[in-house]
């Protein structure tokens, strides 16, 4: 028997198109059980993580999103044969139905909020806000090291404080426009805040306008919006 690389879970009856190809150009097929279907493709072994394979995985999940909102699998999920895949799907069918209901009719958008000023200036601002440690008579490499640690901690704390304020203000602005929010904790390196939003498909334009208004008002920020994405961040299904 051949193993299967998994792409996403959909309701039964949502079959991949005949020409859809996934990792390594292998045809994507559906394996169904319990009223659900898993889009997958034959793979002799768990796939190696390579950028092109990651993109191929995402392309298949996006192909599913053209018709319905699936539950995407993380890259690399693999079963040694379809029998075990069907058994797994059957055993978890209630969880996955709930998951599909969570994301039904919506897609994910990703926001990154970075300081508009250069990072060095931001660090200087954060340091200026910190009271000096100890007395000027302190000497030695140890004291200098501790001061460096304290400055780094101050910068991190200031970044976290700003990030929390930004996310709170953003949540207020987007109230009623997003179904759910998934902040990255900690945010992507260098960002003040990064968050995924689950946005109803019919509500994308109001969401985008609200984000643009927010960006215009908060000139101290660079706001980067990407999407739509399959709802990777909103899969609230514990692993079996």
């Amino acid at each position, binding site marked *: 028997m051949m193993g299967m690389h*998994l792409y996403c879970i959909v309701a039964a009856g949502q079959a991949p198109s005949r020409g859809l190809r996934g990792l390594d150009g292998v045809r994507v097929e559906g394996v169904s059980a319990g009223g659900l279907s898993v889009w997958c493709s034959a793979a002799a072994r*768990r796939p190696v993580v390579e950028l092109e394979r990651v993109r191929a995985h995402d392309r298949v999940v996006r192909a599913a999103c053209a018709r319905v909102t699936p539950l*995407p699998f993380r890259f690399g999920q693999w079963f040694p044969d379809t029998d075990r895949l069907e058994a797994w799907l059957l055993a978890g069918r209630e969880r996955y139905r709930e998951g599909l209901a969570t994301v039904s009719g919506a897609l994910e958008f990703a926001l990154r909020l970075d300081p508009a000023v250069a990072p060095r200036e931001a660090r200087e601002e954060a340091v200026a806000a910190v009271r000096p440690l100890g007395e000027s008579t302190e000497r030695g490499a140890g004291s200098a090291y501790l001061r460096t640690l304290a400055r780094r901690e101050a910068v991190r704390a200031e970044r976290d404080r700003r990030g929390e304020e930004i996310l709170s203000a953003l949540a207020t602005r987007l109230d009623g426009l997003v179904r759910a929010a998934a902040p990255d904790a900690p945010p992507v390196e260098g960002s003040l805040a990064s968050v995924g939003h689950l946005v109803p498909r019919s509500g994308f334009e109001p969401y985008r306008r609200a984000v643009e208004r927010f960006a215009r008002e908060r000139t101290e920020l660079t706001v980067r919006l990407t999407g739509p994405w399959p709802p990777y961040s909103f899969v609230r299904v514990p692993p079996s």
Partner: protein
Amino acid sequence: MSEANGREGAVDGVGPAELEGMPEIESPLADVALVDLLNRVLDRGVVIAGDVTVSVAGVDLLHLDLRLLLSSVESLGPRGRGVGPRGPTGGAE
């Protein structure tokens, strides 16, 4: 992907052609979108196994920090040599 027009009747309120017109936003910085892609595909979604463990040249690197992996994959490019995931280790979603 394209824009939904909100027709009712399909599995989740969106019919086969509903995505027409929904523009795909691309960040002016390609690396932002790549980070978003890798962050999502490698670190989120349904799991049946736990953390990705990888090997390089046959040497297991257990529980490799995914941020390190993201950095290394970013630098690989489409023809870069990949690292291989290994079997389940448990973990939570």
